[in-house]
């Protein structure tokens, strides 16, 4: 019997879910994210039996990299888990409620209110399986902890919840993969993620999203809390999804905490991406550094809004946010907005950004060295993302991301060439 704190939250969340209409997110009057084409009542959580072996698509993405722990949720069920390092816990959240009740109760949904809208409420009410990660005090892991969310059939609704707790002075890498093969039809991933990095810990966290060309909607909230003198390097990677609406918050909650937040997105075809990130400084003497880079091809739409929020009392905060966006097609539309809310004096906070196209000077320069225009574009875009990719500090995942960027560029080669050619003509 699940503990009351979970059941009570489910009931309360269900009420919110039932009373809230389908949301439309509007910003600045001209940017709208709507899910009106999503046929929510046609989707269902699908249960699956445990697997002996990893599904092919998961094996491909993970490669032969060693892991400290690996857990895979397919649809509504955890189908595979393996813990290579006995010092840590990696298990379904449902199971952790039984076996690690006290620890889970202490952190579960601490930063994830169920009443933040229809989809967070749905996630809180309907999540199944789930993932619990615990790296105890002083444990240092060499290999990453890998969490995989797999949707491999249209018609699937996946309500996800991951709770990760990294103990004092522990050091680890945690990766979540969100993958789907190319399929015809709709699916939904409504996810919740929370990480608590306890004092003195160091976490390298990555989210790798590649939902393929199916009509996958991803509406998720991810929050990271960093405690005293802890550091989290967070690298969200968005490489595909029909419609993505995500709220990503990273919070320096105690003095001496440090965030390195480095993300990227590459949208194509008619994909729609809407990201809102907040670097929140709740205490003084904390530091932050955020870089987001995006590229758009096809008729895709990508909006990134990055907020630095420094609350009253958080003096001596030192933080910086920059956002870059590169348009590679005349029909793509992008928007990248850095913003600041600073409610205290004596802080250093700044932001900057660029939205633009490929630089003709750079292309000309590379061509004078014998590279064709298409090669020059490929090298420039790969180089542009390299700063983000290297922050993964994970050769296997880095290689995967580089390969996918190269594939996307090959796929878009014709339109990019036409676009660059037109720009060159116009110049």
């Amino acid at each position, binding site marked *: 019997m699940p503990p009351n704190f979970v059941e009570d939250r489910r009931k309360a969340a269900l009420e919110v879910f039932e009373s809230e209409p389908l949301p439309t997110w509007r910003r600045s009057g001209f940017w709208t994210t709507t899910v009106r084409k999503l046929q929510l009542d046609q989707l269902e959580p699908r249960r699956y039996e445990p697997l002996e072996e990893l599904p092919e698509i998961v094996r491909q993405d993970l490669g032969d990299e060693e892991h400290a722990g690996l857990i895979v949720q397919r649809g509504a069920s955890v189908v595979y888990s393996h813990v290579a390092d006995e010092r840590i816990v990696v298990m379904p959240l449902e199971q952790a409620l039984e076996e690690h009740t006290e620890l889970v109760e202490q952190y579960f949904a601490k930063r994830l209110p169920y009443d933040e809208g229809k989809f967070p409420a749905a996630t809180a009410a309907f999540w199944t399986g789930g993932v619990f990660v615990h790296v105890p005090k002083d444990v240092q892991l060499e290999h990453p902890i890998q969490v995989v969310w797999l949707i491999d059939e249209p018609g699937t609704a996946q309500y996800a919840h991951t709770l990760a707790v990294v103990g004092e002075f522990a050091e680890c890498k945690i990766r979540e993969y969100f993958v789907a093969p190319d399929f015809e039809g709709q699916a939904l991933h409504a996810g919740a993620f929370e990480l608590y990095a306890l004092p003195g810990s160091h976490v390298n966290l990555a989210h790798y999203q590649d939902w393929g060309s199916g009509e996958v909607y991803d509406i998720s909230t991810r929050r990271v809390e960093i405690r005293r003198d802890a550091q989290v390097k967070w690298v969200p990677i968005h490489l595909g999804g029909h419609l993505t609406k995500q709220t990503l918050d990273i919070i320096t909650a105690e003095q001496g905490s440090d965030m390195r937040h480095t993300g990227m997105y590459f949208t194509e075809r008619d994909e729609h991406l809407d990201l809102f990130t907040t670097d929140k400084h709740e205490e003084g003497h904390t530091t932050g550094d955020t870089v987001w880079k995006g590229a758009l091809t096809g008729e895709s739409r990508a909006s990134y809004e990055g907020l630095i929020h420094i609350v009253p009392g958080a003096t001596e905060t030192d933080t910086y946010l920059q956002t870059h966006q590169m348009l590679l097609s005349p029909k793509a539309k992008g928007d990248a907005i850095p913003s600041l809310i600073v409610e205290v004096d004596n802080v250093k906070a700044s932001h900057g950004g660029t939205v633009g196209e490929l630089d*003709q000077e750079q292309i000309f320069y590379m061509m004078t060295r*014998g590279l064709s225009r298409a090669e020059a574009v490929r090298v420039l875009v790969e180089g542009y993302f390299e700063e983000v990719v290297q922050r993964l500090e994970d050769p296997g995942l880095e290689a995967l991301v580089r390969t996918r960027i190269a594939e996307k560029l090959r796929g878009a080669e014709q339109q990019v060439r036409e676009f660059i050619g037109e720009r060159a003509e116009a110049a």
Partner: protein
Amino acid sequence: MTLEIQNLHVRTEEREILHGVDLVVKRGETHALMGPNGSGKSTLANTLMGNPVYEVTDGRILLDGEDLTEADPDERAKAGLFMAFQYPATIPGVSVANFLRMAVNAGREEPIKVKEFGRLLRENMDLLRIDRDFTSRYLNEGFSGGEKKRAEILQLAMLQPEFAVLDETDSGLDIDALRIVAAGVNEMRVPERGFLIITHYTRILGLVHPDFVHIMLDGRIVREGGPELADELEDKGYEWVREEVAAGAS
């Protein structure tokens, strides 16, 4: 076997900059093109490489008889033309070594073997006295002016083109760096290769002795001669040329 520039007229969107330039550089020769700021020297260099900012409205560029006037920059590079940029572009995320390998391979049928590339790179870096850790830095990102110029000459040394244009490679270099760069260029002066050295000052010409000197003014070559012309210019300055041209025109 020559680089031939015939009656070249070049304009930007706003105005015509080159008003009929003729210049012939044979292999084995080193030519200096001198002129005050704004005389059109860099425009000529960029036009030779096919910079899309400049439009050729009349005249031709021939390399060993092949007409390159309308060719894309990468075709010119493959035909054997090279330019060391005055202000090279920054290429974030691409290391010097990676970029050099791509550039070397662009001019070859088969990719260069890793060992051979490494050996070639080390040799040329030693020639130009470049630190080994230089090659892992992103190309031109955070480089000082001198480092950028050396990276350009390193590319020249790695690519071994048939004709090389050095666009104000000397400007911004201190005398030690200039000596190193000049020694590198002298090393590459062989009978199979032609050089066009574009400069505002005569300083580099004391280290890399040209066979011919051309002076450009307001988009035209107005004086031509041997190395002594550079000395005369050093003594009398560009105003002298301007006055002479004005006198000749009247």
